[in-house]
């Protein structure tokens, strides 16, 4: 283990051996994220703008993550189907970022083009108490931005937003990331659907 880390991070290969999990200090991340929010707050007038800034920041991360994590997969392959890509976000991107898969991935009941990824304890929001006057602001906007970055870069443009959802039986509201795909994506999906004959 020690020998592996004697090399500078930029000198190490992008490829990782199996079982080698990259970890960073959660405290360091929490402070950095806290500073990002505090800095963003000096640049915005409303909570909507603040969420927007976090989403933009996340978008950049998402685009890079798609590239890196696809490369590290066993059989790197471009995802051409919507479900493949969503599963990739749920079971590959989430463990890379948070050390576990997302709690759930589901399709919205009301609409075909809406999907949701939910997490009860999103690690991003662990230490953050949103003051009451900030209304529905959710620091998970960064995660929404990351997801949007991945979807956009993969050619599945979507509108992505974060919401707090109260779940009966839980003391904390869960964070739900809602993805609404553009009509062009859904039309392409319909075309790619193998015809039942």
């Amino acid at each position, binding site marked *: 283990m020690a020998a592996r880390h004697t090399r500078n991070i930029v000198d190490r290969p992008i490829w990782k051996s199996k079982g080698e999990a990259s970890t960073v200090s959660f*405290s360091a991340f929490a*402070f950095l994220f*806290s500073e990002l*929010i505090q800095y963003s707050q000096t640049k915005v007038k409303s909570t909507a703008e603040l969420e927007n800034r976090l989403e933009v920041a996340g978008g950049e991360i998402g685009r890079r993550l798609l590239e890196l994590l696809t490369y590290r997969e066993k059989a790197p392959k471009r995802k051409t189907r919507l479900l493949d890509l969503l599963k990739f976000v749920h079971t590959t991107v989430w463990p890379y970022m948070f050390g576990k898969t997302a709690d759930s991935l589901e399709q919205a009941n009301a609409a075909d083009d809406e999907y949701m990824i939910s997490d009860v304890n999103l690690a991003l929001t662990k*230490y*953050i*108490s*949103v*003051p009451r006057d900030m209304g529905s602001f959710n*620091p998970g906007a960064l995660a929404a931005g990351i997801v949007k970055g991945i979807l956009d870069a993969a050619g599945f443009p979507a509108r992505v937003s974060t919401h707090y959802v109260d779940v009966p039986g839980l003391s904390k509201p869960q964070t739900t990331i809602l993805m609404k795909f553009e009509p062009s994506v859904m039309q392409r999906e319909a075309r790619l659907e193998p015809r039942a004959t």
Partner: protein
Amino acid sequence: MALIYSLYIINKSGGLIFHKDFAPISRVDLNDSLRLASIWHSLNAISVQLSPVPSCTGIELLEAETFNLHSFQSVTGTKFVLVVDPRASSVPAFLQRVYQLYTDYVLKNPFYEVEMPIRCELFDAHIEAAVQKYPMMS
């Protein structure tokens, strides 16, 4: 009956930034608790001056017949004061726990300004939970 009576957090200039009572005892009103905080802060500073040996960090424990007052000062000068029943044990360890919760849920919260009163829901909730877990008197 709960052995922990109340918790005060005092900032480095002697202002009270957090106060919570845990037992149904006669409550100290807000003005009095603010005064209490600044007096304790001053006493602490005086005790440091009085110490015959250098590097004294101030009063750590005040014992009375009906209560004990434990105080812990962090490196930045923030003081954590716990008023407990004289029978309460391992209070310094509990103060460390409070300090840990403070560093996690207050200092890592982007909406908290240092040295200002603490209004963080998660901090409140975790302090409450920690006190609940503290051994009760049968």
